[in-house]
């Protein structure tokens, strides 16, 4: 098996960058402005990280020129991601409901519980490949990764805190009572030059960390990169079926077209209207974001409300239980039959075998993405 993404995050030393910049300046002078990034000849400061796009992925959506990744910025983001200090009770971090071993979902939880065990209304989505997302959350209410964390932090059943108060608490660190005494002002200084903590810096650090959460090393990816043996015959059969029957929505290498669709689920008691909550347009009633299927074998339970516990249940829904309604996606309409996707039991088995090949074991074991010792798992 080849390892095409070994150098995913190549560290460029400042010396090398500076030497390169100097060379460019000497030989090309100011005339060469086209693709030359200005490099500050500073002797101190954060260490840049080159973020490398997996070869078969499209270009990212997030504009990294606005928030260049650095070792220190990513590390700060990792601490912030896991630290319960983001919540009112100092108990709930992002990592509480987005756990690495479940591809950053809340494994085993149909709905997640935040502060004081309060329950949310939706299943916690996977935090992965965030650089490619055109919108965030099941209803797509947030369109900028830097603006995402405000939502769970201030949601009364998630972290129930204000970002302003989080900043106040971060400024007061290191706390002797903390489970691990982290000196956040010092970490902000390392990442951004001064100890000042602002919501912009906090969000940009979180974004930097989340941008490194790239899952592109599943067996499917190895197959895609040329290793024919990475998938077995059944999985290859499943892939062909998947492409024929599922890929109109779960499209491309991210396995989603990022659209919002009604997939025929019977609304539950709270009657979650999905995208309608953002647009207030009747045409959007009961539509939810098409989720990426990367790591789908690790992210049970499924659907926006976690109602299905297995992939078998999911495919049974698509073949047999689609509920007709005014906004049901037209992809499910069948001539002379009730809506659904035509799938035999054998076909379902193959598709599920293929879906499991999207599990990325390196992603869920990558130590650079794991809890640095400040998090809580419930």
């Amino acid at each position, binding site marked *: 098996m080849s390892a095409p993404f070994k150098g995913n995050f190549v560290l460029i030393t400042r010396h090398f960058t500076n030497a390169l910049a100097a060379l460019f300046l000497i030989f090309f002078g100011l005339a060469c402005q086209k693709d030359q990034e200005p490099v500050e000849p500073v002797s101190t400061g954060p260490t840049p990280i080159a973020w490398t796009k997996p070869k078969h992925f499209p270009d*990212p959506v997030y504009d990294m020129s606005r928030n260049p990744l650095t070792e220190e910025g990513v590390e700060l983001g990792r601490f912030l991601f896991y630290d319960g200090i983001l919540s009112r009770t100092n108990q709930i971090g992002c990592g509480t409901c987005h756990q690495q071993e479940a591809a950053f979902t809340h494994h085993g939880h149909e709905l997640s519980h935040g502060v004081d065990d309060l329950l949310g209304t939706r299943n916690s989505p996977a935090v992965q490949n965030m650089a490619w997302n055109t919108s965030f959350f099941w209803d797509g209410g947030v369109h900028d990764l830097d*603006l995402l964390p405000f939502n769970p932090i201030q949601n009364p059943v998630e972290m129930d805190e*204000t*970002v302003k108060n989080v900043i106040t608490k971060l400024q007061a660190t290191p706390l002797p009572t903390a489970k691990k005494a982290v000196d956040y002002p010092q970490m902000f200084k390392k990442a951004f030059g001064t100890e000042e903590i602002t*919501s912009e810096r906090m*969000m940009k650090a979180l974004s930097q960390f989340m941008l490194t959460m790239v899952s592109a090393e599943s067996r499917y990816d190895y197959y895609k990169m040329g290793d024919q043996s990475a998938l077995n015959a059944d999985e290859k059969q499943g892939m062909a079926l998947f492409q024929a029957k599922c890929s109109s929505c779960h499209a491309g290498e991210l396995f989603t077209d990022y659209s919002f669709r009604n997939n025929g689920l019977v609304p539950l008691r709270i009657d979650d209207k999905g995208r309608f909550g953002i647009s207030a347009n009747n045409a959007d009633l009961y539509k939810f974001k098409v989720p990426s299927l990367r790591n789908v074998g690790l992210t049970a339970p499924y659907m926006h409300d976690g109602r299905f516990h297995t992939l078998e249940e999911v495919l049974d829904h698509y073949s047999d239980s689609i509920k007709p309604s005014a906004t049901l996606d037209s992809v499910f309409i069948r001539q002379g039959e009730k809506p659904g996707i035509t799938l035999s039991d054998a076909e379902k088995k193959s598709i599920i075998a293929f879906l499991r090949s999207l599990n990325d074991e390196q992603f869920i074991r990558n130590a650079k993405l794991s809890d640095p010792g400040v998090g809580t798992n419930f």
Partner: protein
Amino acid sequence: MKKKEAMPALLAAILCVFMLAACTDVDTDPNPATGDAGAITLEFDNIVGDKNLVLGGGSSTNGAGEDFVLTKFNYYISNIKLLRQDGTYYTVPQDSSYFLIMEDKKESQLVKLNNVPYATYTGLEFMVGVDSARNTMPIEKRTGVLDPGGSMMEDGMYWAWNSGYIFMKMEGTSSKATSANGKFYYHIGLFGGYDIKTVNNTRVVKLGFNNLQANVTKDDAPEVHIFADVLKFFKGPGTNVSIKEYTSIMSQQPEKSKEVADNYAQMFNVDHIH
């Protein structure tokens, strides 16, 4: 790469702005002489009919004949332009043209504009709310009162689950409110949508100084006293809000919020200048 769907609309909007500016180049003066500049203060004074607004104070009656007492009243004023006597405008630089007026913070009601070119001003223009472009800008363009995690958060002038600012927030109590706690909540926002079309509740208000003038000189920093009448928020050209019928108006009743926005577009007037 980013904002694929919104991009054409945004570009079109930018183009329109440029074309407009090109057609009417007497309209704006983007480079005022910095040497000859003074200050002007806009005071936003919230009233209820002929009375001063007092949060938690005496009961008033709205256009639907319902009693009410306000407990919170906040709104954004942005994109301020001052009209000179010769018909040209001085436009306050956009990055420093966002203000959050809060009834419970006196200092927030005094909008002091510095670097205003010496001239005689006879009117002004401002937006109620936060323009659509700013609503889609990156986080580094959201500082001060626009910080989604800053001071604003105490007053909740930002929808974190549906990225966008709340333009005007009015809360209070009424015997006619149908809520469990007897309170009514009007949170009016929506800027037109990022990748879907929603209503746009930003409103541009143009106010003449009538026969009055504001002379900005080396020695004179006039204060324009603007009234914002809560009764006109309830009753105006858009609608006559009944608290009983609409105890809460937020993002889920866009058509109603649009009617309220048409009301708040008309709630301001210049009372005097000193």
